């Protein structure tokens, strides 16, 4: 939303600098995303009188002598068809920038030129498009002689020396009332500590009088009694609202043509529409747009006679209902849309003629032949309109306002104001207003103590009262707070406390620290932190990878894609499935790094994973597990990478005081799937499976285009957390006895170690066993395994002899 500071200042007396005003709006109302400074945009652009205009033969050009208030006339060649002697036009002086181009990379500077080789032309007479007041390029702009004289700066006449605020709409989602300049100004007054008074009563007079006036109900049912001259003339209009949840209030004013609206001159309203991001189009559309910017209430105009013809009745029957699936409607922009059951439609009798809140239909569009108008001013369910917006992709200024939930209190008054603005061409034939369940006044009770208690402030009773009253709240007692009709968002104490805190400035609240208790450590975070330190020491690199992966990635890693939760609105197919395990993502990153190239590395990640197989937990959300994955890769083809991965996991677990045992890989769970069973293992502790380690299937390795030296592991961190111990018993003995032992065997290393342990137990001695080497001659089944034994006590040689016999 764009807010013109000059327009704003018409409604509130701003005594602070613009910088301070912008800061205060930011701190107390809404984020100001930017300030567009237009204070020099119309420099050197002045009003001139065309003193003479001579057609240049055989061209469309006119040779003009213009008077800019100085004694000397200036010659300008003009190509516009409407240039004529005596008119007031807008002259862009040589050296000035064309306003429509000021924000372009290379703004267009007007110069002095020779036209057709002989006519000097200084500067240019400007059209509306060049002045950035719309797209009209049919002629030059004409200025009302009652409003200006030659030499007047254009900026002075229309208050164009302005700053435009770019407002971030999102943080006003709950404040539909601020989507009109009046509501915005009311807030600014409140922020500045002033009571909001309209600066220009003519702007607001109608709103006040209409709100105070009793209106006849519409012809719904038996028809009204026709009180007053402006009330509905017995049954002239029938409004039917199927369900007041979709439309709280529907007001119409019927206008009858009695003359032409002459639009000859550039108006202040044109400039306001432009500064607010809209475009002047024609008098009727401009009036409705202007009022929307002023009050936040969108309006729509139907051609009365077309409306009646479509419905086939002699008087308009307006029917507001939900569309039926499959119903069709051709919109104003000629597009035919298929409606669905969430769309609200305005029907003539039962035939849809407009998509409520979004766009009018073609069949009832006003045009230059329109004699009578149905002017609609209504509110619609923001929930339905939001769906309409999404389903049909309509994002207009009007629907932006409707989807905030416009209050219903002012619909008729705004339509009436519109009628007044169009009075040169139209007069009110009748009005109708269907408002089945008028909104109730919201009353909230809140005390000074509650306000200060929640904010941590010491605001006194009077300050609180005035602050609320400044923006239209009625405050009685200590405090009964009545919300004004436009504040449909005030329901509970906290809503009122927010108003007080915000309007007086959150920045004025003193930051204080409450006394705090003691917290206990989160064990999983502590574990991960510990692992991070250990792994860094081990020369490994921690990575983070996306939680979403592609079907292709899972297939490459030999995983079943059906075991993944699938994102239906993913950014790309690469991010469609929720990952089941960590390792596949690491294989992907291993490729990236091997290509850079890094010759050797071990990358790991600790993160959460989900598998459909695991089902739901007690809260009925998917079971989640914390996992650690690691992949190590080298740019070489020789060697059994399995043992390096095993070494990493074994040592890591040892640091966490977890004993590990490696068993043949048999499992077929998702975590095990990328691994080659002949060169991978299941990791156990205390008889429980806690992970997998090993090399990957040939197919997997090839799919990821990785070199042969490749292995990894995946650990169940929920189990690790259970098993990890913070400390271990340390046995320090002064006299250790160290021996080396070599045994020839056809058994596995594990079996050999088990045997050694048996012997030690039998002899009642303890020793730490660590490997030295494994030697296996070519073509032999027998290996020579050497281990180092560190005894915690003295032993005699007979034990060694016994061990050598194994």
């Amino acid at each position, binding site marked *: 939303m764009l807010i013109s500071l000059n327009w704003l200042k018409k409604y509130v007396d701003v005594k602070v600098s613009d910088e301070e005003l912008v800061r205060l709006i930011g*701190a*107390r*109302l*809404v*984020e100001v995303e930017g300030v567009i400074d237009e204070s020099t945009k119309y420099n050197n652009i002045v009003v001139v009188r065309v003193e003479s205009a001579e057609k240049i033969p055989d061209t469309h050009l006119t040779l003009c002598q213009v008077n800019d208030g100085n004694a000397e006339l200036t010659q300008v060649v003009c190509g516009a068809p409407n240039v004529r002697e005596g008119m007031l036009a807008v002259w862009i002086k040589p050296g000035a920038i064309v306003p429509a181009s000021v924000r372009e990379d290379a703004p267009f500077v007007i110069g002095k030129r020779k036209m057709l080789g002989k006519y000097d032309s200084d500067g240019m007479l400007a059209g509306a498009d060049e002045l950035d007041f719309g797209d009209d390029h049919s002629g030059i702009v004409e200025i009302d002689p009652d409003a200006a004289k030659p030499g007047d700066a254009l900026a002075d006449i229309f208050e164009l020396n302005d700053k435009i605020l770019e407002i971030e709409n999102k943080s006003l989602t709950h404040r539909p009332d601020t989507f009109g300049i009046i509501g915005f100004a009311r807030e600014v007054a409140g922020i500045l500590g002033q009571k909001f008074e309209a600066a220009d009563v003519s702007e607001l007079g109608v709103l006040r009088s209409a709100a105070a006036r009793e209106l006849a109900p519409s012809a719904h049912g038996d028809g009204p009694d026709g009180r007053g001259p402006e009330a509905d003339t017995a049954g002239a209009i029938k409004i039917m609202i199927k369900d007041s949840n979709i439309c709280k209030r529907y007001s119409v004013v019927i206008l009858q043509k009695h003359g032409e609206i002459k639009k000859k001159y550039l108006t202040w309203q044109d400039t306001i529409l432009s500064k607010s991001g809209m475009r002047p189009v024609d008098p009727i559309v401009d009036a409705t747009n202007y009022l929307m910017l002023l009050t936040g209430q969108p309006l729509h105009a139907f051609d009365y006679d077309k409306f009646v013809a479509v419905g086939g009745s002699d008087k308009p029957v307006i029917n507001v209902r939900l569309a039926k699936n499959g119903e069709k409607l051709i919109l104003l922009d000629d597009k035919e849309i298929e409606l669905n059951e969430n769309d609200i439609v305005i029907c003539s009798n039962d035939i849809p003629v407009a998509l409520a809140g979004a766009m009018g239909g073609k069949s009832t569009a006003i045009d230059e032949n329109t004699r009578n108008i149905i002017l609609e001013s209504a509110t619609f369910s923001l*929930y339905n309109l*939001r*769906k309409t917006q999404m389903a049909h992709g309509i994002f207009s200024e009007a629907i932006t306002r409707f989807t*905030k939930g416009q209050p219903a209190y002012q619909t008729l008054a705004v339509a009436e104001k519109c009628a007044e603005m169009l009075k040169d061409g139209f007069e009110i034939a009748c009005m109708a207003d269907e408002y089945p369940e008028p909104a109730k006044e919201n009353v909230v009770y809140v005390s000074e103590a509650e306000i200060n*208690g*929640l904010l*941590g402030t010491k605001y006194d009773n009077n300050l609180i009262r005035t602050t609320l009253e400044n923006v239209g709240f009625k405050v009685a007692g200590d405090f009964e707070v009545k919300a004004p009709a436009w504040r449909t968002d005030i329901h509970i104490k906290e809503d009122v406390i*927010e108003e007080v805190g*915000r309007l007086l400035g959150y920045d004025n*609240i003193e*930051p*204080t620290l*409450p006394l*705090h208790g003691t*917290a206990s450590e989160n064990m999983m*975070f502590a574990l991960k932190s510990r692992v*991070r330190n250990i792994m*860094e020491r*081990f*020369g490994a690199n*921690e990575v*983070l*990878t996306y*939680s979403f992966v592609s079907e292709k990635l899972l297939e490459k890693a030999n995983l079943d894609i059906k075991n993944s*939760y*699938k*994102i*239906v*609105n*993913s950014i790309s197919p690469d991010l469609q499935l929720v990952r089941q395990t960590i390792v596949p993502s690491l294989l992907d990153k291993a490729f990236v*790094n091997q290509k*850079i190239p*890094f010759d*050797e*590395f071990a*990358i790991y990640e600790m*993160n959460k994973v989900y598998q459909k197989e695991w089902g739901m937990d007690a809260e009925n*959300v998917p079971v989640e597990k914390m996992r650690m994955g690691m992949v190590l890769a080298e740019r070489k083809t020789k*060697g059994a990478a*399995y*043992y390096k991965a*095993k*070494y990493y996991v074994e040592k890591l677990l040892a640091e966490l005081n977890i004993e590990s045992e*490696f*068993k043949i890989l048999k499992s077929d769970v998702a975590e095990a799937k990328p691994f*080659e069973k*002949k*060169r991978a*293992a299941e990791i156990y502790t205390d008889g429980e499976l806690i992970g997998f380690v090993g090399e990957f299937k*040939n197919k997997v390795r090839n799919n990821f285009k990785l070199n042969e030296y490749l292995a990894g592991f995946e650990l169940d961190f929920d189990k690790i957390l259970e098993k990890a111990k913070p400390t271990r018993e340390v046995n320090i003995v002064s006299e250790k006895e160290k021996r080396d032992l070599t045994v020839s065997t056809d058994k596995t*290393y*594990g079996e050999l170690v088990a045997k050694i342990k048996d012997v030690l137990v039998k002899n009642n001695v303890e020793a730490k066993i660590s*490997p030295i080497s*494994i*030697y296996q001659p070519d073509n032999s089944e027998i290996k020579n395994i050497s281990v180092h034994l560190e005894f915690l006590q003295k032993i005699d040689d007979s034990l060694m002899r016994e061990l050598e016999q194994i």
Partner: protein
Amino acid sequence: MQELEKLKVELKNINSEYSKIKDIAPEKRGEFGREINARKNEILAKIAEVEEALLDAEVEPLDITAPCAPNEKLPTFYDTLAGSEHPLMTELDRVINIYQSMGFDVMESRQLDDEYHMFDSLNFPKEHPARDGYDTFRTEEGLIPPAHTSTMQNRALKRFKHNLDEGKNIAVVIPGRVYRNEDVDATHEHTFYQCEGVYVSKDCTMGNMLGILREFFEKYYEQKLNIRTQPGYFPFTEPSLEFMIEKPKSLGGKKGDFLEMLGCGMIHPNVLKMAGINPEEYHGFAWGGGIDRLVMLRFGLKDVRNFESGNLNFLKEF
């Protein structure tokens, strides 16, 4: 091996059948071609399968209990100097430690959640346009990879409610990974980290909230900071604020250069009610902000995409 030979012969036969196509009536050629193609593909798949099986059969089994392969050296770690920790994770640890020292318990946020926790329990009216602002992903089942760590507020309140019964406060922070359906560029990621804070007691104030947040940021950036707020809108807090800090000089900031660090506010009574806490008796405040941004500012990083890149050129800097 024999099987592979057989399959290859079969493939050859099929290939030779293609030449027969010229003897077939033109209207039947299409059908003939499709049939041959189908058979050919079947054979090719079988060949691939057999070849793979052969390749797998060649795989030498290892003694998985051994420390190394026969005649190979015992494995060692890579050079300690090559090791690195992920900056987001180490900084997250710092964040957690600071909050812990201020008396906050720590929970980790979920990475797949439901509509109830993401929106309903946070006082978002059903189908309210405010839900659109979060650009959420959804699964086929309607589950949501959370777009904010606030998805944990209801759980945190319930889990620590007993503190209130024991006359203590609820003070908990909830870091975690969150997701937004938005295009990625140097300052936007669809996957990032946030940290939520929840505080409930009988008499806490907005002043306390501002105090705690200022304290946190001053501890995190290890210096005094200027703070600022602006009104915001979140259905789950009332009043709602955006919290800003003035970019410290030491990090290249200029005076008046305020950065939005997080959203915060006093917990909406409905949110307390939905967790079984009586809003007449207790009130609280909550906040949530991005960790990525915090860390980028600290290290002067310009491109958020590095964090999830897995690129060792970047990671080895930390």
